[in-house]
């Protein structure tokens, strides 16, 4: 029995096409001269153009506070694309893409900006002879999200007869549960949830999507993917770099908000979720919300037992001496912002009850690695003696997201010789060795999906709120505690205090 989608029935030409059509769209980037737009968004748009993946009619409008003309913006965009695109820019494609780009200078609360935006969008519709979809991308400081949303609504730009309007909102979506609730309320007072695309760019990474393929397309793993066989799950997002020039942002955010509240909880969801019946946006997100709802939010009293924070001190990374966090440029001497966070969470449902999920992230650790390690329970009876060898160890399945995307499974194997001695060996699958294609940048996939209206890889309102419900009590507890914050030496494995949240014989994997 073949399965066809509604789209295939309606347009018989799309079946078999690798790139599904995207309807004519105007993409409006708020914050178009900012760092994210320059480094990620404009290069992503270019790469989509290069591959012929953009809609047959596509227009780009940039809005930012900087005063510049259309031509100056085009020049800036061209330079950004040339510098940051993953492929060398083709001059003809670049010219064709940027020829009709418009730039509207002004502050985001300036009524005049939205008047000029309306004129520009109407003008594009007239040129096309029909209404075009509109996609507003908010690549600004989070404090501008509410005002932009409100102004778009006020200027009747949240709806467009005969076409779709979508809004893409960058992270962070609030800095506390209260803020997230308030922001959701403001956004949903103007847009419907189906129009809202909250970006977590981790979800656009091929390897994160591959986790679902790994779990749900292989009969081998799912039977053991539960509390009966799995001892613990450890999710690590370690960086060897410091905060660089991001002190202003980072000292306000900290590791918990920067990575755990969004990316790492999403990874946890991908590990723990039940298989959706269909791979549709709402069914996938329903399953993720169930996982988040099954995590008991800590209380002020339990935070110390399940969460650890720390700051890096001076040390050595890659053979180079580096400064401690408090000595970084722009960081207040009295800062209590964590550069390391480790949590132990439990998913209280039939599949996972009793299995600890350890999450840790940090700056200036020994190396850059993002991985999910699933440790299986040991065999119930050991027939082999361990003398003279490392002996059997529990199997560990490691899904590595970066730098070497792939999967490894540790197995016990006999050491060659006359005796039955066992040591762990690794069976490795490296993603890059098995496919011909170069992975697209996460933003390319996400921008295209947003223009197409596919929200599978975006975070829904209830998902964001459920994430904050878990993280908010920890933030409050740490805020109330103040300093001093535990410390760890840059270039190392993190603070010794992190061992405090481990259960039984569990241990942190070496970074």
């Amino acid at each position: 029995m073949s399965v066809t989608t509604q789209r295939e029935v309606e347009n018989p030409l799309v079946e078999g096409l690798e790139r599904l059509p995207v309807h004519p769209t105007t993409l409006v980037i708020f914050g178009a001269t900012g760092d994210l737009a320059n480094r990620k968004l404009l290069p992503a748009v270019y790469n989509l153009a290069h591959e012929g993946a953009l809609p047959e009619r596509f227009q780009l409008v940039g809005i930012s506070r900087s005063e510049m003309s259309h031509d100056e913006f085009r020049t800036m965009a061209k330079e950004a694309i040339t510098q940051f695109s993953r492929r060398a820019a083709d001059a003809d494609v670049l010219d064709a893409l940027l020829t009709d780009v418009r730039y509207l200078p002004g502050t985001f609360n300036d009524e005049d900006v939205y008047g000029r935006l309306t004129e520009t969008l109407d003008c594009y519709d007239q040129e096309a002879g029909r209404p075009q979809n509109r996609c507003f991308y908010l690549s600004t400081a989070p404090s501008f999200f509410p005002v932009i949303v409100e102004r778009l609504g006020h200027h009747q730009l949240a709806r467009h007869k005969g076409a779709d309007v979508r809004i893409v909102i960058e992270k962070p979506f609030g800095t506390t549960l209260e803020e997230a609730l308030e922001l959701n309320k403001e956004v949903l007072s103007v847009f419907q949830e189906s129009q809202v695309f909250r970006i977590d760019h981790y979800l656009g990474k091929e390897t994160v999507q591959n986790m679902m393929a790994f779990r749900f397309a292989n009969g081998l793993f799912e039977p053991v993917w539960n509390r009966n066989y799995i001892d613990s799950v450890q999710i690590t997002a370690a960086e060897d770099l410091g905060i660089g020039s991001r002190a202003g942002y980072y000292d306000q955010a900290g590791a918990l908000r920067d990575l755990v509240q969004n990316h790492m909880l999403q990874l946890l969801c991908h590990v723990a979720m039940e298989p959706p019946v269909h791979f549709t946006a709402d069914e996938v997100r329903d399953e993720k919300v169930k996982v988040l709802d099954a995590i008991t939010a800590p209380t002020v009293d339990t935070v110390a037992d399940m969460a650890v924070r720390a700051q890096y001190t001076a040390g050595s990374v890659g053979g180079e001496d580096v400064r401690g966090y408090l000595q970084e440029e722009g960081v207040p001497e009295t800062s209590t912002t964590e550069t390391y966070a480790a949590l132990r969470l439990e998913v209280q449902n039939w599949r996972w009850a009793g299995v600890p999920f350890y999450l840790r992230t940090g700056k200036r650790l020994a190396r850059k690695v993002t991985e999910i390690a699933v440790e299986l329970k040991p065999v119930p009876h050991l027939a082999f003696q361990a003398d003279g060898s490392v002996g059997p160890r529990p199997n560990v399945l490691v899904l590595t997201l970066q730098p070497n995307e792939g999967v490894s499974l540790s197995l016990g194997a006999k050491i060659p010789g006359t005796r039955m001695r066992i040591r762990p060996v690794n069976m490795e699958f490296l993603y890059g060795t098995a496919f011909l294609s170069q992975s697209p940048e996460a933003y390319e996939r996400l921008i295209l999906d947003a223009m197409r209206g596919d929200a599978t890889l975006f975070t829904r309102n209830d998902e964001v709120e459920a994430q904050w419900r878990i993280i908010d009590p920890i933030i409050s507890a740490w805020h109330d505690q103040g300093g001093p914050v535990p410390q760890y030496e840059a270039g190392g494995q993190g603070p010794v205090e992190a061992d405090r949240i481990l259960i039984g014989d569990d241990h942190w994997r070496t970074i």
Partner: protein
Amino acid sequence: MPIDTVWSERDTTPSEIEEALRKLLFERHGEDARYVPGRVLNMVCIVDREWAGEVVNRLERTGRYHASRTIIVAIESGRTTIDAVASIASDTDPRPGEFALLRETMQVTIGERHVGHLDTIVDPLVISDLPTMVWSPHGHPEAVDALLSLAQVVLLDSVDEPDVGDALGRARELTGAGLYVVDLAWLRSTPWRERFAASFDPGSLRAELRQLTRVEVRHHERSRAAALLFVGWVASRLGWRTDALMTADGTWRGRAHGRRQDVDLALATDLQQSVPGLAGVTVETASGRHLSLDRGRGGLRAHYTNQRGDDRTWTVVGASRGEPGILGEGIRQALLRDPTYNPALAAATTLVP
């Protein structure tokens, strides 16, 4: 700088070649465990000995799409023994914390007398359980036939055949034998198919697909196969009945029969077109809409008119892949399956005069 590791031998056997390659891999991995072999695709290229270098260069120029193990079978007239060169190479040195991908290449030089039993030479050299693609750009269909039991995919280019009917017939013969055919002529029409599908995708325009009254395809003088496959695709997707076209002044014309009305078809050679593939597509509908897509700078130039007098021109942005890009795409397609190719091929075959 990465260096190829090479082994060569005269008057050798497939077993010796396979063993030598295993040793090369073992040595390379022993030097640095971050060198890892790719395990994606076996590709067997059957070429005339004197053109082997040219084919290797074509494969090099495809950029990032390479089979993980490439076996060049070079046929030399009068040869009685087998010579072989095996090499493993990486495009990069492994960076800290990362791995470097190795590609394996073998050139096996054989005589005509070996062709009938080519499977017994190639079988020990391919990696089991990986898909195997066969490409024979210089003809040698008998060599391809000898490998059909080993291969799952055949790469061909219908524009290489002087007679388009023979070209499409050969593709049908191979698909009939259960192989997946990747035809570069089909891939040359991909951007046109995508754009054509997109032009009629907005809900208000989909009904127009049932009202098409004319399809004209302009093509490079040697790329009639690509044009036929494009029209065959439209016909098969929209359920048209097709008959053989007629030839007049170098243009192939005829009619397809849709549910509501007949559709005028035309395949015209564009002598200005310098590269293989399509030069332009024009469609018209019963309601008087007219849409043309033609090659232009930075993408396809779209031109739209209707009975109300609307007249619009714009660029559908996209880069030309060039011939190396088309070949690279052909290699990549070995891992995919396009369910619309066989119906398009069947319809295209009926259009040949």
